[in-house]
Structure formats: C-alpha cells, structure tokens
C-alpha cells in the first residue's frame, strides 16, 4: 500500500520534530528569556514579512503552468495569503509593546529560509512551498506559551499577540495543507521536491533557533 502524499510528508518530518522542540526548549529557557524573546521577535519579523509575497508569487507561477492541479494550488495559495496578511505588522506591534524595534538587517538564516523558497518557486516548482509551510505550521506555539513568556519576561500583554494568536490558528491550517496535498497527489518526484523543501526548512529553522538561543549579543 502506497502512503498518501500527506502521510509521506508527515512521516519524513516526524523525526525533525524532536530536534526542533529541543532547539525551541533552548530558546525558551528561563535565564535571560526577556532579551532572547526580543531577539526572537526581531528575527521572526523579516521571515513573516516574506510569507505573503512568497504565497502570491507561488500563486502567480502556478497560474502560468498548463496544469489543472496548479490552478487549484494557486487558489489555495491566494486564499492562504489573505489569512496571513498583516501578520508581520503584529510582530512590529509586539516589538513596540516591548519597547523594542525591528532588526536593522534580517538574520542571515532567515534570508536563507525565505531565499530558498524564492529559488524553488522560480526555478523548481511552486508546489515546493507546501513543504516550507508544513514545517512552519506544524510547529506552532503551544497554547500556554504566551502566558509562560509573559510571566517569565515581565513584558506587557501586548508583546505576545503573534505567539498567542498563532497557537490557536495553525492547527486548522496544517489540516488544510494536508488535504490540498492529497488532492493534488503529486507525482513521486514532485513529492520528493516538497519533502526536500520541508526538510531543508526544518534544518535551517533548527540552526536559527540554536543561534538565537546561544547568541549572547545585546538588545535587538
């Protein structure tokens, strides 16, 4: 029996969950969490800022393909872009509520994360963006994280909107992504392209979180 596309992707990503959770545990350790949380917000802002443009570009590329599956994928990307719109503003507001601002330049690993997706959309196939999205939405904040961060950092409630709202949003998003992937039922080579995109994303995010957890630098 051959696994569905979504089961295959989930199976390949399952081993990465332990590693990403370990990296985020290091990120959320109590010592120095206030400063580290601000660095995290500042690093996530340019990543989230790229979400809608990536989705819109992927939809455009799909629309240019002679492929009925690509048209339904374009519709999904367009719909999802609307759901994600302005979430980068939430991060700026969280930073402002914490008395901080955005980073002067994007974290280099963030550039690699988003940049790899631009490459894949332009030069490989826009379906590969599903792999990137599966990792981001499959590792949403836990429902109690915002409260724990607020307690540990002493920052005002307004500094946690992004973490709080995404803990509630992304479970449904991931189910929809799996449904879209199974309806597309990409050919095996395309499924591999999606999962390579996902595993590359998981690897870079692990690097990003470990870098943020270890960085002894000053205020973002």
């Amino acid at each position, binding site marked *: *029996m*051959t*696994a569905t596309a979504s*089961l295959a992707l989930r*199976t*390949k990503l399952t*081993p*990465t969950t332990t*590693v*990403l*959770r*370990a*990296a*985020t*545990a*290091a*990120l*959320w*350790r*109590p010592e120095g969490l206030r400063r580290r949380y601000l660095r995290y917000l500042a690093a*996530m802002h340019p990543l*989230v800022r790229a979400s809608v443009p990536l989705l819109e570009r992927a939809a455009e590329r799909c629309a240019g*393909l*002679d*492929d009925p*599956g690509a048209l339904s994928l374009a519709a999904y990307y367009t719909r999802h872009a609307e759901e994600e719109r302005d979430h980068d503003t939430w991060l700026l507001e969280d930073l402002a509520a914490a008395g901080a601002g955005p980073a002067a330049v994007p974290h280099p690993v963030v550039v690699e994360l988003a940049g790899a997706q631009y490459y894949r959309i332009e*030069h*490989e196939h826009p*379906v590969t963006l599903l792999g990137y999205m599966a*990792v*981001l*939405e*499959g*590792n949403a*904040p*836990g*429902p109690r*994280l915002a409260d*724990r961060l607020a307690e540990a950092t002493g920052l005002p409630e307004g500094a946690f909107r992004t*973490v709080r709202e*995404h*803990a509630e949003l992304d479970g449904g998003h991931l189910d929809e992504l799996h449904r879209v992937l199974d309806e*597309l039922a*990409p*050919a*095996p*080579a*395309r499924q*591999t392209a999606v999962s*390579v995109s996902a*595993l*590359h994303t*998981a*690897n870079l*995010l*692990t*690097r990003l*979180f*470990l870098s943020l*957890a270890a960085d002894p630098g000053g205020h973002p």
Partner: protein
Amino acid sequence: MTEDTTPYEDASSGGSPSEPTLEALAAAGFELDTLSEEQYEVLRALSPEELALLVDIRGRLDAAAPEVQAHADVAGGALF
C-alpha cells in the same frame, strides 16, 4: 502536477527498497521502532537528499540537548 522541470531522478519512483536507508537513520539516532509498515515504506524510499538532510538535522540535536527543559512539551514550537 506536471513533470516538465523534474531536476533529478527520484528514489521513490522505481528504485529498489533500501534497507541501508533505515540503517543510516538508526545509526544517526532516530527511533524507528514505533513506525507502521507504511511509514517504513516511505523511509526506505528516501532520496539521497532527504536522507542527508535528516541526518544533518539529527546531528544538531546534540548541540541542543543540554538545554532541553522539562517544559518543552508545554511550549511547543515557535513558528507561524
């Protein structure tokens, strides 16, 4: 989806099942005991790129392990 830009041969599209792939995952430290037969099938057919990325990701765990806290299950991930 169309196949017009397929950049490489895919290990899951006709390659023979690869026990060395499972052995490589186990040697890297992945727990494989609880997988279903369907999931084993998926992992046996990993492409070299997929296997290399999984092994690389697992290698990063050693760096994070000392910092793992008991509240990791409460925190969940950190992505949106």
